[in-house]
């Protein structure tokens, strides 16, 4: 189908965007890459009176390095995927972005759009929740920084207010000696994962696990951490049995719902299999590093 009628508002600076959002309130939707919003318009699942197109805002596309990789809301998935800077400082982020859709989707889709859209199966929210990343939001009222855990509130629902613009997403870099893995199962390459898991594992000098993070996409209304399995891993000595039992613990802590891509049982099964693979791979990377 075709998009419904709307008023098109093109802005060229953050301030102009904030002014328009303040003025238009919840009648308006921000248009970034359009890779989620335009399908929703065409399917008539969204019907905003105004679209505020931020694509011509000049200073929202930064990719900045440091202890935290900071990505401007308008940085495109493809630019992050191809960034040597990101590949070097945050290989897990590089690997994650490659799972998003197809090249033509990644050419337009933005980091901010993916995070603001908050699809529970999307990879970036799953990564942000794994890393305890942060989201910066601006409005005419000021700037605030939200932790991933408080930002994602539910299915396609975030803590962003209608007058707020997501301006930056922050991905903490992994500490030295931390291994990582992202595992996803999808029916076709580039589709949203049926289940996605992001894992990091850190090992101390005595060879024991000092920290473990396990975050799932596709199994709840937002990305979720498997905290019981994470705490069960800490202090343990890595072994094949340990990975198996932690993966089992993680999977049994989930209560996924079913849809045409998979029943709850199938999703839980996938979560277990993928978590075990991810733990093995993440630990392998600790040893390589």
């Amino acid at each position, binding site marked *: *189908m*075709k*998009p*419904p*009628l*709307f*008023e*098109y508002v*093109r802005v060229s600076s953050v301030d102009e965007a904030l002014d328009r959002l303040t003025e238009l309130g919840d009648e308006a939707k921000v*248009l970034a890459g*359009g*890779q989620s919003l*335009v*399908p929703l*318009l*065409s*399917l008539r699942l969204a019907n905003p009176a105004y*679209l505020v*197109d931020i*694509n011509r805002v000049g200073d929202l596309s930064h990719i900045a390095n440091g202890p935290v990789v900071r990505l401007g809301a308008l940085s495109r998935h*493809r630019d992050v995927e191809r960034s040597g800077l990101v590949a070097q400082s945050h290989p897990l982020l590089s690997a994650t972005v490659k799972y998003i*859709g*197809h*090249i*033509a*989707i990644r*050419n*337009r889709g933005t980091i901010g759009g993916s995070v603001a859209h908050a699809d529970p199966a999307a990879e970036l929210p799953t990564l942000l929740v794994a890393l305890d990343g942060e989201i910066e939001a601006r409005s005419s009222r000021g700037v605030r920084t939200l932790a991933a855990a408080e930002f994602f509130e539910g299915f396609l629902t975030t803590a962003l207010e209608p007058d707020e613009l997501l301006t930056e997403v922050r991905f903490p870099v992994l500490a030295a000696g931390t291994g990582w893995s992202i595992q996803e199962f999808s029916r*076709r*390459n*580039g589709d949203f994962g049926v289940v996605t898991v992001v894992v990091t594992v850190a090992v101390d000098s005595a060879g024991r696990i000092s920290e473990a993070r396990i975050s799932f996409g596709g199994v709840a209304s937002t990305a979720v951490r498997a905290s019981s399995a994470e705490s069960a891993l800490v202090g343990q000595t890595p072994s094949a049995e340990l990975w198996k039992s932690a993966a089992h613990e993680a999977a049994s802590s989930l209560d996924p719902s079913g849809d045409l891509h998979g029943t709850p049982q199938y999703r839980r099964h996938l979560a277990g299999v993928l978590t075990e693979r991810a733990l093995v791979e993440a630990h392998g990377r600790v040893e390589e590093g």
Partner: protein
Amino acid sequence: MTMDMELTVNGSAYQVSADPRRTLADFLREDLRLTGTHLGCEHGVCGACTVMVDGSAVRSCLMLAVQADGCDVMTIEGLERDGQLHPLQESLRDCHSFQCGFCTPGFVMTALAMIEEGSAPASEEELRENLAGNLCRCTGYQSIVEGVIEAVRRTTDQSASAQGAVEKRVS
């Protein structure tokens, strides 16, 4: 309310006005009568509507025409030069890479972007990954993969990796 805009399509400059709700795909097909760009799903899934905007492959069903203001657009109609097909088109023809042809413009633009970016895939698997966003209901994909491998070979003679993949296929 329509919006005035300027853009270049296949090398020709246009000054037009478009309704903001018009997608780039509909604008190309209905307003410019460039019907080589096909519409399958109209929500980003099938890849039939893929065109190049400022050198990158994009879904024209997910871009508003007014967003192409000031841009350089290339569609399937822009490939042939003076009656001479692009080497990619010739390769696809020679490898029988299409049957009904509905998906073909999308595959051509996706493969063209890949070739022009100079990111020739290192393996057949990677090539299949790059083409995975385009759906074909007829061929079973084998002949499309062969056609694109052949095109990579013809356009980048030195690309050893693509050669390897071709030899594997042909032998």
